[in-house]
């Protein structure tokens, strides 16, 4: 997998909430995670899953800056681009 799509992002986010309950339609990308009922533990889990699925290591400082889904999309896309 060399691209990180919105579809994949949604899939990972939903799986951290066991498939249900998140409002990931419309312009969710720029909503802060807490507004999406996505707590700090879920963000860490998201980072772990991204690391697993895309074989990346996300440093602490980078995780701290992931405040919206778009941040994650941009960050992972950039990292994948760098490894080419």
């Amino acid at each position, binding site marked *: 997998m060399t691209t990180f799509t919105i579809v994949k992002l949604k899939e990972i986010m939903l799986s951290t909430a066991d498939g249900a309950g998140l409002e990931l339609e419309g312009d969710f990308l720029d909503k802060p995670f807490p507004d999406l009922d996505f*707590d*700090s*533990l879920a963000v*860490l*889990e998201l980072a*772990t899953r991204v690391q697993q699925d895309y074989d990346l290591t996300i440093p*602490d400082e980078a*995780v701290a800056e992931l405040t919206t889904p778009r941040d994650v999309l941009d960050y992972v896309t950039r990292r994948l681009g760098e490894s080419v």
Partner: protein
Amino acid sequence: MITGLGVVAPGGIGAKAFWEMLTAGRTATRPITLFDAAPFRCRIAAEVDFDPAREGLSPKEIRRMDRAGQFAVVATREALADSGLGADLDRSRLGVSLGSAIGNSSRMEEEYVAISDGGRDWLVDHRFTVPYSYSYIALNSLATEVAWAARCEGPAVVVSAGCTSGLDAVGHAVQLIEDGTADVMVTGATDAPLTPITMACFDALKATTPRNDDPASGCRPFHRDRDGIVLGEGAAIFVVEELEHARRRGANIRAEVLGYANRANAYHMTGLRPDGLELAESIRAALDQARVGPSDIGYVNAHGSGTRQNDLHETAAVKRALGPAAYEVPMSSIKSMVGHSLGAIGAIEIAACVLVIQEGVIPPTANLTEQDPLCDLDYVPLVARKQRTDTVLTIGSGFGGFQTAMVLAAPGQVTP
């Protein structure tokens, strides 16, 4: 009444060695030797240099017991010897209340590695288990080991509340004595978290410090640059006795448990709100039960885990509960020296409090070279302080939102 105590802690096995380290302000945090920590984010911990045979365990006991069980039994034997409890004890009135957050997980993980062939097989091979491997998942087995060592015939149970287990187990024991269920309880806590799975858990949470280049100062509670906990391990066990029972046999009463309260923040499994409201409520309820006021507290033994959020949460809670007195009372974190041993640390901290009361010296918060301006209380930086202290408050906070407080005092301090 606490009439006996035993400690197995990083930097010192036995109450004497433990106290010597605390008052010297020495830290036991170092690069991990118990397993290969190279692949982990945090590679330091506070380890106990523990030779089970030297500590008196038999080969069968060593083979059978997880490290946490071994710590508990060694500390139990020290506590029983210290208490002077005789053979004429009515054992039906003797119980066990042992705290632990993760139980026998280190042997469980070892067994798992063998039977799964290094994580290869989901359908593990049951033929490669040791006969007592079930005890590695059944948490009560730690209580049974202590119950056998103490030969108790009253209630025996493991109390588990994450990082407050140590405080809650002793609180539980006191409640059983208060309601007449038991006259004597062997109580305390144990945990041996220094294993790959637990280290991986804390790595995933980014709760442990990544400061691997300076292990001796890895745990920095209340410091401006603190960045996480350092895991530890160990056990502390007490003999806790009903007052008349202790007096009748002429027991040496080391300290008295005056008050205990536990609450939950009902907020988040790992997160803390900065206002510390529920921990403050535990403190208030414990002081209330102890019938002491904030200005009666001579020392606060902090949870002081060294995470950015805890130290703020706890400072707020102490201010909320003690009011202006919060600024007058010394408050230190011994986790700076012995690390955070999860369920065990609450009991290890009670042991430190008992020694504070007996010895009149307050242990420092090690590594506190630059205090966080937002944490503005007297955290006893770096150097122990000679101060007669008759009434002590110890607090704890843990995963699951558990918030606990206990008040201890020199015997005879408060007339009922």
